[in-house]
């Protein structure tokens, strides 16, 4: 899976769960500060990402995934 594909898949998840339009989910965006996503929705996003990409995201990892790019990198490295 290319980074571009991961980004597109992640954007779809964020749109579905948090209502952020997919085209706003760009690599440099911070989930909390830029996309206004709270910690509860981050949990949902992480679970959906696990299902979509087949990558386990432990809680201790999740708190370090601050930006969209962080998640793309993590999924890319671990899938």
């Amino acid at each position: 899976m290319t980074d571009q594909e991961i980004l597109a898949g992640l954007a779809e998840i964020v749109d579905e769960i948090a209502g952020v339009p997919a085209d706003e989910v760009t690599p440099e965006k911070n989930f909390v500060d830029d996309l206004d996503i709270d910690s509860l929705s981050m949990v949902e996003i992480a679970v959906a990402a696990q299902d979509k990409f087949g990558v386990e995201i432990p809680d201790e990892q999740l708190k370090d995934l601050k930006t969209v790019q962080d998640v793309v990198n993590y999924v890319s490295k671990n899938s």
Partner: protein
Amino acid sequence: MSSNDRVSVVVTGLGATTPLGGDVASTWSAMLAGTSGVRRITEDWVNPLPVKIAAPAAADPAAEVGRVQARRLDRCEQFALVAAREAWADAGSPTVDPWRLGVAVTSGIGGIGSTIAGYDTMRERGWDRMSPYTVPMLMPNGAAGWISIELGAKAGAHALVSACASGAETIGYGIDMIRSGRADVVVAGGSEAAIMALNISAFAVMRAMSTRNDEPERASRPFDKGRDGFVLGEGAGVVILESLSHAKARGARIYAVAAGAGYSADAYHISHGSPDGAGVAFAISSALRDGGISPSQVAHVNAHATSTPEGDPLEARALQSALGSAADGVIVSATKSMTGHLLGGAGAIESVATILALRDRTAPPTINLEDLDDEVTIDVATKARPLTPRAGSDGPMAALNNAFGFGGHNVTLAFTEYIPKES
């Protein structure tokens, strides 16, 4: 404080989403026309149950609140938010100091649909697949929290719970918030979304529900000899309560005065009303006293009357006992004949109906009342009827809303016409 120098509380906005309509206007016009909101339930889950009818909301609240909020709010919270938005806009979306704006919105059961869905998910797919919003969705104070967030209301957000009296009791609490000086404006009401197998089964096993499955629209028939139990409805009602001085200062349109509230507990049985009706009569008398209203001012009562064999005549007797000879001139309506019973939302949508009855000077009909119970000697409106100030009464026309709940809770709210004082 005496009733003379006490803060007067008025109603300046109304919101509702009910089995009769997705807003106040459509609900009220359907109510005046005597429309039934009761339907046959068509989903498969109803098959093993003895009750196959209910009064579902006319408008889907999920479509109103949008996809993201629909994921995070239980259906009962969605109803409450929809009704609160309507009421707030109806009041003119006033500018209020956030620390002087309160919320008192409740539910009898809370997010039971989310509780059940969360349990199913946990068992079938595991704990980590549950929605992280499960707790805020199942808590009965969730609607109050969401509304306070939406409006930035910081004077306090409350949700009193007393089963089917919850909505009325919470409006009473809202009145108290203003009287006690804690708030200038309070968004107050109740909501319920409980049309699902567990709740219908639980009420059915108490033999509390109508099983007139073949005639859904005729099933809810308060005060009629053929009544055989209540029909479950869903939706929400919200009123904007405001101190008279605050409302006048901003030139608000005033529907009515929220003049008084009365409460009692039967202390008799957990689900049966005390047959002597003393608790109900005490709540009615207390509301009149609290509002400085004489029985002869009361033109209209929106009765709790759920269409159960036991409850309706008890309420009729209590009205007679509390109002004395003045009971003869009162026009009583049982709007659950059309909406079904909204449990924690009942007292709220019926307060909205009571206030509109005063505004339009029209009592809504009680449908399906074909053969009045012999024990019932009050005047129950079977068609929409005009309300007129009663001869010999020395104050503004008043209307009462009764709400009673399992646990022995009795609540009466008293509203009067607003008559501007010369000053």
